[in-house]
């Protein structure tokens, strides 16, 4: 079963494909989340290029996902930024237990939101405050405070606490995202 079945089913009525970018620092839980979301029939390809950063892509009937780690020191930045243009929705994953790197996540988010291919577009952003099951995890309210999400005025956004391993909190987020995409499409 896949949580996206309903979402892709609805969208499947229309012929067009929706590209979703799933971003976040390395180790935040993106792969785990996407694996939970994947419909059973989705074809997954794992691309590990030699240049030093990895992109995962998979497609369901009407959704295509591009997942990548926002890691590294800028040498490959323009490579992943290349994908911004085609993204129509963003899932941004945060490791709520990594207090030290919350500033790095914020910095990456700020850079993302200011990218010319993102800045002036009203694309929905779904935040997963992931790993909420861990002892050192901070609440999703605290995460949104630390990332200053209240300053995002020109894009619809939503934050959910999640535990990607047990799949908790993912449905809520996906439901929200689905509403947003539909609102744009109709």
């Amino acid at each position, binding site marked *: 079963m896949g949580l996206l079945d309903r979402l892709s089913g609805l969208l499947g009525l229309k012929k067009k494909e929706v590209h979703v970018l799933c971003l976040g*620092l*390395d*180790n935040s839980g993106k792969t785990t989340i996407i694996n939970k979301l994947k419909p059973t029939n989705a074809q997954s390809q794992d691309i590990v290029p030699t240049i030093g950063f990895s992109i995962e892509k998979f497609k369901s009937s009407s959704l295509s996902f591009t997942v990548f780690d926002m890691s*590294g*020191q*800028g*040498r490959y*930045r323009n490579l992943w930024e290349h994908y911004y243009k085609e993204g129509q929705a963003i899932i941004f994953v945060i490791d709520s237990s*990594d*207090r*030290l*790197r*919350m*500033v*790095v996540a*914020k*910095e*990456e988010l*700020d*850079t993302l*939101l*200011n990218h010319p291919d993102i800045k002036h577009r009203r694309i929905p952003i779904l935040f997963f405050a992931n790993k909420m099951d861990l002892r*050192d995890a901070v609440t999703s309210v605290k995460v949104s*405070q*630390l990332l*200053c999400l209240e*300053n*995002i005025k020109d894009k619809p956004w939503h934050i959910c606490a999640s535990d990607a391993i047990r799949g908790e909190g993912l449905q809520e987020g996906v439901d929200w995202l689905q509403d947003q995409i539909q609102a744009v499409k109709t």
Partner: protein
Amino acid sequence: MAAASGSDCGRRRPESNDAGSKWLDAHYDPVANIHTFSSCLALADLHGDGEFKLVVGDFGPGGQQPRLKVLKGPTVLTESPLPALPAAAATFLMEQHEPRTPALALASGPCVYVYKNLRPYFKFSLPPLPPNPLEQDVWNQAKEDRIDPLTLKEMLEDIREKAEVPLSVQSLKFLQLELSEMEAFVNQHKSKPIKRQTVITTMTTVKKNLADEDAISCLVLGTESKELLVLDPEAFTVLSKMSLPSVPVFLEVSGQFDVEFRLAAACRNGTVYILRRDSKHPKYCIELSAQPVGLVRVHKILVVGTTQDSLQGFTHKGKKLWTVPMPAAILTMSLLEQRSRGLHAVMVGLANGEVRIYHDKALLNVIRAPDAVTSLCFGRYGREDNTLIMTTRGGSLIIKILKRTAVFAEWGGEAGPPPAQSTKLNMPRKTRLYVDQTLREREAGTAMHRAFQTDLYLLRLRAARAYVQALESSLNPVSASAREPLKLHAVVQGLGPTFKLTLHLQNTSTARPIVGLLVCFLYNEGLYALPCAFFKVPLLVPGLNYPLETFVESLSDKGSSDVIKVLVLREGQSAPLLSAHINMPASEGLAAA
């Protein structure tokens, strides 16, 4: 504890996001209660889970409760007391087996405590030193009750003062006791043999036989007994022993122990000694003009900080390359290695709270900490490369993360040539004339120079002659004669045909008035008419300006003008004291009429 990230909330635009800083404030805990130096900090993936931990050999407040702390992110993971103050902390790979988690070594007192997976694994103690036979003899006498504690104390003090070999810890402790405690101490210790042990002052690691990042390493120890020891990473036996002329306090090693290595030891005598694999004694030595306070190796350059507030660079053969003065005393130094950009720089913690980052002589960046930084460590922490850990004198912990987009501009600091030096000057093109001239100058340089000099001398001669002539004929408006120092200047007013001529006469002597002067006008009587061409000057008081007025009538109806000469004379002398030529203006009044 307060994470500093909340502070810049409300400013999302990156251009205003304190654009100047290259650092993200990840954590600041003003009451972390960590008191340590750079040598007692180490970063390593101690659990092999990809999450790098921070090892701290903590002195405790006031150097009281020394502790070994291991931090994960902003929080202390484990904490255990140490028997003595820590001297250095290091992490290293001990063996080839999987999983390749690094071991932790902490030098404290005469021992190195080795931990694996944060569990005590091995304790290495420095080999004991031969005791002083005199000291042993005295204790033997005490053992046989031949001397009382007071005599023992006197004899030990005597030995302490005279002998070359220092006393054992047991004797030193005894000498500190009060009279009442001595008896018990002697009874307790008199039958034990005297043991003399030195302590570890510094520690580092050197790769054993491979240069790889994850190759096994040996521990290198410096001791208070002026020795360097290299330990086997598995058996902890002493592989090599080197002696130094002084006590080493900072060590830097490059190369591999089994192949070839270069070891630099900064010592308490203000000298850095450089040893090689084949040398049991120093091969080169760098004499500093002050005590070393830090030693960092950047590739082949040794950077030494001294108590004279300067940073000095030396080659590995001891040749001095440069010196950079610091604005305050240096407290600590450490290496900054930004792998992704291949940058190696030196971080210097100063007493004024600044942390300066230098690439050779060039200042790359300055971080201002709320308090003087006493320890610095840069590397991978948690899951983030390029994390900077600082602790301050007051015991606070500051963690900063280098922005992933940050680039240190080589000449961004105040060092380096001024920008004007690189702007291109608008030089004229080399013309044919220029080239010809240059060729001529090259060929006939001497002759040209001589001709020029001749002309210059002639010019000077002519000027001097004219001056002398003017003086002789008093043709100048300033009289320099000692008796009548005078100054004269004249003003002509009016459009004509009637002009007003005013002579300003001034006695420039300091005290003496001048009497008996006459003024005489010489002029062409066909052109001008003056009511009085010759008159007496009143007494001239020193310093005052005397305006003497007279009218001049222009008689010419063609508007032509001439010179009127003014002579200032002394009664009874024919040569004038001074003279002035007044160029009369043409009469415009007539032309207009």
